[in-house]
């Protein structure tokens, strides 16, 4: 075990994976000698050479297309999209190509050994274009896996699992936690299974679900609620596609209430999918309407960032509303 921040954990996972798999290459804008704008790939070029860790020209669609080509021909491709806000030029290559490569060819070809790492989320005064949480655009695409870690330990284990998974994965890294989240991380090589949620706090009155940076918001809200005598069960979904319905449904059957929190705008967000599924699975167990505490349906604002965010206070209020319904 060693104490490190999330960037160091990501860096360590990449290094371990590259050491173990000589077919693996890491690339993207500024990821070479410079080590990426957040330094997630720091030192990798020095350790593994320019052929395996390198800068690309400034073209997200090119990076994604290139990644598909590499992965289709026996390589393990780990591409960085510098900000999730800039993933949209690569949307076609991810949604129409990576996601369908195996299906459309009848498994003649696949790009399973492919990960797109990308920092997402707000809270860093990044305005419209350094703050978005575009996960729901990808969760509706069969063939993709979508993974979001909440802390350094999770980041390392989930990233190693994503790199070795036989399906293309979009790995959203909560950039507001890159340096803010520090914790004990196991040494060496370990994986955290994809598609499994984790109950991080047990409770009996209401189930709270989130992922990534919003997990610390849920923890704070759960603490506030505990002082009012409300017992919250907190679940980190970790993988959004395919998501762990059973863990959430089992919890809701126990608590009878569900709150989902995400940074992305409310409308069309992944909370809607969770809510619809859980009301189907747990209809007769529900004691109040499923609550969604999410970003506003606006572009991500700069100066009103705090107001936009689904923070602990909004979450606390929604918890109280749910248990007193």
């Amino acid at each position, binding site marked *: 075990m060693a104490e490190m921040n999330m960037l160091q954990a990501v860096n360590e996972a990449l290094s371990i994976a590259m050491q173990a798999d000589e077919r693996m*290459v890491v690339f993207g804008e500024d990821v070479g000698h410079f080590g990426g704008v957040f330094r997630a790939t720091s030192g990798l070029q020095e350790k593994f050479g320019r052929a395996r860790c390198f800068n690309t020209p400034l073209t997200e669609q*090119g990076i994604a297309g290139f990644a598909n080509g590499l992965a289709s021909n026996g390589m393990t491709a780990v591409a960085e999209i510098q900000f999730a806000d800039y993933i949209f030029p690569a949307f*076609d290559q991810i949604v129409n190509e990576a996601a369908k*490569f195996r299906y459309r060819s009848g498994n003649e*070809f696949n790009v399973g050994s492919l990960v797109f790492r990308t920092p997402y989320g707000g809270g860093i005064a990044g305005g419209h274009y350094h703050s978005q949480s575009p996960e729901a655009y990808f969760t509706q695409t069969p063939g993709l896996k979508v993974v979001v870690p909440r802390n350094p330990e999770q980041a390392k284990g989930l990233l190693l699992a994503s790199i070795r998974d036989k399906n293309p994965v979009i790995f959203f890294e909560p950039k507001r936690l890159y340096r803010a989240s520090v914790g004990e991380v196991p040494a060496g090589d370990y994986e955290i299974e994809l*598609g499994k949620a984790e109950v991080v706090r047990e409770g009996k009155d209401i189930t709270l679900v989130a992922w990534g940076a919003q997990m610390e918001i849920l923890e704070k809200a759960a603490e506030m609620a505990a002082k009012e005598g409300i017992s919250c069960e907190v679940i980190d979904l970790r993988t959004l596609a395919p998501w762990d319905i059973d863990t959430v449904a089992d919890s809701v059957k126990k608590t009878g209430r569900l709150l989902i929190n995400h940074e992305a705008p409310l409308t069309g967000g992944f909370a809607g999918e969770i809510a619809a599924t859980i009301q189907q699975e747990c209809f007769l167990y529900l004691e109040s309407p499923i609550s969604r505490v999410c970003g506003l349906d606006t572009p991500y604002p700069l100066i009103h960032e705090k107001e936009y965010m689904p923070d602990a206070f909004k979450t606390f209020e929604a918890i109280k509303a749910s248990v007193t319904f």
Partner: protein
Amino acid sequence: MSKATLNTDTVHRVGFLDKASLHIPILRILQADGTTYETAVLPVIDETLATKIYDTCVFTRVLDERMLGAQRQGRISFYMTCTGEEAAIVGSVAALDQEDVILAQYREHAALRYRGFTTEQFMNQMFSNEKDLGKGRQMPIHYGSAALHYQTISSPLATQIPQATGVGYSLKMQGKRKVAVCYFGEGAASEGDFHAGLNMAAVLKCPVIFFCRNNGYAISTPTEEQFAGNGIASRGVGYGMHTIRVDGNDMLAVLAATQQARAYAIEHNAPVLIEAMTYRLGAHSSSDDPSGYRSKDEEAKWQQHDPVKRFKLWLINKGWLAEADDVKLHEKYREEVLAAVKVAEKIPVPMLDEIIEDVYDKPTPVLKKQLAELKEHIKKYPQAYPKSAGRL
């Protein structure tokens, strides 16, 4: 400091470059009468290779003619022909190694045939039957074969271009001394993926042959409404890439250019752009009618430049083909294609269970649940789902 800022080649009066600043000749080896230009340097070709090339052209033409007919009869839903562009496709694939990886656009089935895709395999794909390698999931002509190093076609245009760059990089990393070969049209070259793919290939030094079929039209849009520059070739030079423009209806010119492009790409770990000037003699697809956007006169003019006829005359001049054998060859393939149609259309469609396979490496619990629910529903209304109701 960036190297670019160290350029000391300066002038002191304003002067602009234009598209004529770059002179791009067209390589032509074969004349209309089937003789070669006196000063021409021929590609490496012997009777065996020449015969295989011609055989592939004849098969492709017969296949196109018959399957367009089959589409008109309602036996398949969709078709696209290669007619008029056979020299561009077959001349280039014939210069490759069997293990060079092909990433095609969609109109390059002649290349797949050259590599050994059987008549039955073509039919199984077009009829979406259970023997289709693609498991009946894509429209007709979206072929692919791992064994033949021919990546499965996807409908979105130009997506294969940056992918070819990635494949080229992987071949270099693997030390295979093979190239990736990427086919696309001049219309697809307007997509962002074209720029991304070529620029990355040049910067990252990837052994890729980018082969542009400049066939005059993107569906109905003529080249003058597609770009204002000096064709596609001028862009290759801009990317710092070896580039050549060839007569795409000249089998020997295409073969010669591609042979040398391949040697260069492998020797230097570098991409090459080939712009083949040709003409799409047929419609864009079975859903298109060119009479709405081009004249019969124009088509007739290009019929005079039929690439297969030109190559045939060369073969006859060489004594490698006799007219009587040519007639027999056409007849053989007409019968073969017709017979294969009759077999393929009777082969059942893939089992419904295949619908959830290959989305992921293993079907997820949700997919299994959806399949089970779907089967129960089909059992209730079998008449509404005739393709699968009988064999759940």
